Structures are given as structure tokens and as C-alpha cells.
């Protein structure tokens, strides 16, 4: 379970209070600058909350932990390391380069269709492949919680849709708890069980929207074609619009 209450000196985000159940997929949507990424950094232990607590399975977060995996907006693979070297990096950093874990990385690379690319360098792969490698690098240390910081935003539309399905399937089959930050409303609905709509100045959670079962159960791509999808889209859209209109006097 993740529990967040936070208040920073710049008051980036305030009064954030939510919990994620194990295995649940939750999305944070909101205008840029609403502190979505700040929340991820707090949960990842990269930032310390000025006030409040973050707990993972009841334990307070103290610095980065291999229990939390983080996928960045771009792949940020080290160009001087091979694909395999990049994937093993997390294990190396956490001193867990065992034979068993190496095999696990091999298995993950195979699962992502990257087995052939093992000894290539990142510059030799396409953007979509690189982001898949980045997913393997994150999964290699076997985190329980995945934080996804707009991981599809730098990809072209087709690749993005394919990767959404792949990430969704992978996270479900590995029973990971996930928190996705995005500004793409339909991506949020298609992938998650619950959508948290945020407002800014300071960042707060304005509304929580549960995604109905028939959309939840489908792959992100087909979820978009389910009845009811558009109603949720419109609800979130309206919510963000009122936020934007309400935000104009401050801005």
C-alpha cells in the first residue's frame, strides 16, 4: 500500500492523500506543472517530503529502494553500455548480480522480443525498442511497485499504442502495482483501474474516477473501443477544463 501526504517548501503539491492497493494500476492525469512527477520522485525516495508520510507496505520511504521501479519519459539508456550492460545495471548497483538474476534478465529480454539485441548498443535500436530495454532494466531488480513517468510521451503514436499494450500485459502478468503519470487522458483510462485527476497551484487531487471492469479487463488498445470509455474521457476532460478555467486568475 502506498500512502502519500506531502507539502513542499515551494508548495509544489499539497494535501495529496491516496492509497494504491497491491496489484492495482493507478494513473495521475493533470495539466503540466501540477506536480505529477514530484509525487513520483517522492514515492521513489529521490525527494524528501517537507511534511507528511509515504509508506510502502506500511514502511516509510527512506531514500531510493529496489522495491520501487521507475520508468522515465525517455529511455535514458547509457549509450556507452550494451543493451545487456544497461539491463544488468540496476542489479550491479544493488549488488545482486547473481546467476539467477542474470537468467531473469535474459528471460525478460526474450519476453520483450529483445533477445537478438543483447550485444548491440542503444544507438542501434529504435525508440520503441529502447523504451522496452528501459522497461527490462527497471524490472530486472524485481520491484514491487512501478512508477511510470510519461514513459510513452516521447514515442510516435503507433509505437506508443503497441508499447502501452506490452507494458500493461507485462505489469499484469508480473502482478506489479503501478502508478502512471501522463497527460494523455485516453492512455490513463485505457491502462488503469483508477484515474486521479490533479489540479495545480499547488498540486492537489481534484477527483478520483474508477474505471469500470469491462474497460479495465481489456488491453489498452481494445479498451479504447469499449462502451463507456468516451463517457469517462469526457468526465475527465470537463474536470481538467474547469481546472484550467479556475486556474486562469492565478496564472
Amino acid at each position, binding site marked *: 500500500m502506498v500512502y502519500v501526504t506531502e507539502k513542499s517548501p515551494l508548495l509544489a503539491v499539497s494535501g495529496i492523500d491516496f492509497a494504491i492497493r497491491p496489484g492495482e494500476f493507478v494513473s495521475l492525469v493533470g495539466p503540466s506543472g501540477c506536480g505529477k512527477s514530484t509525487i513520483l520522485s517522492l514515492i521513489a525516495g529521490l525527494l524528501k517530503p517537507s511534511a507528511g508520510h509515504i509508506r510502502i507496505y506500511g514502511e516509510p520511504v527512506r531514500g531510493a529502494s529496489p522495491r520501487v521501479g521507475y520508468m522515465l519519459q525517455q529511455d535514458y539508456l547509457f549509450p556507452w553500455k550494451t543493451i545487456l550492460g544497461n539491463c544488468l545495471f540496476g542489479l550491479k548497483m*544493488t549488488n545482486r548480480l547473481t546467476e539467477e538474476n542474470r537468467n531473469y534478465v535474459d528471460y525478460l529480454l526474450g519476453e520483450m522480443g529483445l533477445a537478438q539485441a543483447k550485444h548491440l548498443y542503444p544507438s542501434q535500436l529504435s525508440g520503441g525498442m529502447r523504451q522496452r530495454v528501459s522497461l527490462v532494466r527497471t524490472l530486472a531488480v524485481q520491484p514491487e511497485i512501478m512508477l511510470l513517468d510519461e514513459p510513452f510521451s516521447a514515442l510516435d503514436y503507433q509505437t506508443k499504442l503497441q508499447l502501452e499494450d506490452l507494458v500493461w500485459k507485462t505489469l499484469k502478468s508480473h502482478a506489479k502495482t503501478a502508478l502512471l503519470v501522463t497527460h494523455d487522458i485516453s492512455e490513463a483510462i485505457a491502462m488503469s483501474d483508477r484515474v486521479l485527476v490533479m489540479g495545480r497551484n499547488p498540486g492537489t487531487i481534484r477527483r478520483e474516477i474508477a474505471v469500470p471492469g469491462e474497460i479495465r479487463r481489456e488491453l489498452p488498445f481494445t479498451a479504447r473501443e469499449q462502451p463507456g470509455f468516451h463517457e469517462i474521457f469526457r468526465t475527465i476532460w470537463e474536470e481538467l477544463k474547469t481546472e484550467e478555467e479556475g486556474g486562469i486568475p492565478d496564472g
Partner: protein
Amino acid sequence: MADQVRPTARSLQRAQAEEAPLETEVFARHARRERRLKRFVRLTQWVLLALFFVLWEIAGRNGWIDVLLFSYPGKVGELLIAKLKDGSLLPHVWATTLETFAGFLLGTVCGAALAALLWWSRFLARVLDPFLVVLNSMPKVALGPLLIVGLGPGFASILGTALAVTVIITTIVVFNSFREVDPNYVKVVRLFGGSRWAVFRHVILPASFPTIVSTLKVNVGLSWVGVIVGEFLVARIGLGYLIIYGFQVFNFTLVIMSLFVIAAVATFMYQAVAFLERRMLRPK
């Protein structure tokens, strides 16, 4: 460039034998034009060089210029051959080369190490910032006399001058490249709980490696400045010493010969480092 063009041209010619599509013809035409231009540039360079030496020789022999001051290629060549034969030149070349080599290597290593120290301690970086700016702005060879007093007249102070010229600029350039590393790469290491040392070792250093290697190249040139000035001031051996000696005894043939030797050795050294750079930074 021709090396890259040729195999393609050949394979295209083979394709041409079967059928000649427009792109093959256009490319062949382009390649021909490019080759002709390249040959013309080379030819012009050689002609210019030959013209310069011939004119200089004629002007010298006919007394159009003061031979005592400007000598002429024939005399310089004679002296060079004589000095090579009696073996009195090589020790000078060797001494200067060694000093320059030590200078740019040490300068790069010390500069990079200092940059690492500044990266490590943000406090130190902020404290030293104005001092670095002042040191970088001042002409380092002006420190020559102080270095001689401090390090004694000899190898140490020549190396000191070369170091003074190279270290500060290396520190600044490398430190800047350390700071310009995309913070998201640092984030990756921190997310896996990596230490500050891990960040340096796995991100900062490899990401800045190309910059460090290219400062090596810049430092070759700077190191020559430091070494020659150092030799002007104190040396009893070296090409800089030969220049000053030639100047003092009014043997300008010796001065000009030394200049040519410096030009040759410096170019060779620069090309060697440039070659090394290409080898080390070969794209993957």
C-alpha cells in the same frame, strides 16, 4: 572522404553495367566532380608551398632580402642535414618532445582530476570559481620567472610552465562537461540507490570521456607554447633553447631551422593524438 566514396562508387559501377538508372549516373557525375576538385586543391597547395620556397631561395641568393636575418631554404637545409649527421640535433628534439608530451599528458590528467574534485564538492567549486576565472584570464607564461625561482632552472620549471598553460583551461572545460551531463542519467543511478561515486564512475566520467579526449588534443598545442617559452627562459637543451641561442649569436639559419623542426614535430604529435582520439571515440 574518398575512402568512403570509393567502394560505393565501385558497387554502383557494377550496377551500371547491368542498367544505368538515373541515380547511378548522377552519383558518378558527382563523384567525378568531387575527385577533380580534391586533386585541384592538393595541386594548388603544393604549388603554393613550392612557390614560397623557390621565391625565398631566389630572394636570398640574389640579396633581395637580408640573408643574415632571413636566411634561405638552401642554407637551412644544409644546416639541418649537417646537424642530423653529427647527431647534435636529436637530443634537442628529444628533450622538447619529452617535455611537451609530459606537459600535455600531465596537464590533461591534473585538469581532469581537479574538475572531478570540483564536481565532488559543490562547496569547493563555488569557492574556487572566481579564482579559476582570474587564473584563466591571465597569460600563464607570465608565471615563468616565478616558476623558475620556485622549481629551479631546469626540467621541472619547463614542465611547470607547460602545466600552468594547460591545467586551468582543462579544468574549466572538463568541469563544464561534467555539469552538462543530462541529469536524467544521474537519476537512473540514484533510482537504483547508487552512491555519488557510482554516479561519477558510471555516468559523469563515461559521458565526459569524449570531452576529456578532445582536451588532450587542444593541450598538445598549449603544451608546446608552455614548453618553448619555458625553454626560452631556462633551458640548456631543447628546440626553444636552440631558437634563443641562434638569436643570441645572430645565427638566424639556426632559428629558422629550429622553427621548421618544431612545426614538423608538433604537427606529427597533433596528428598522432587526433588519430588516437578517432580510435577511442569510434562510434559504436
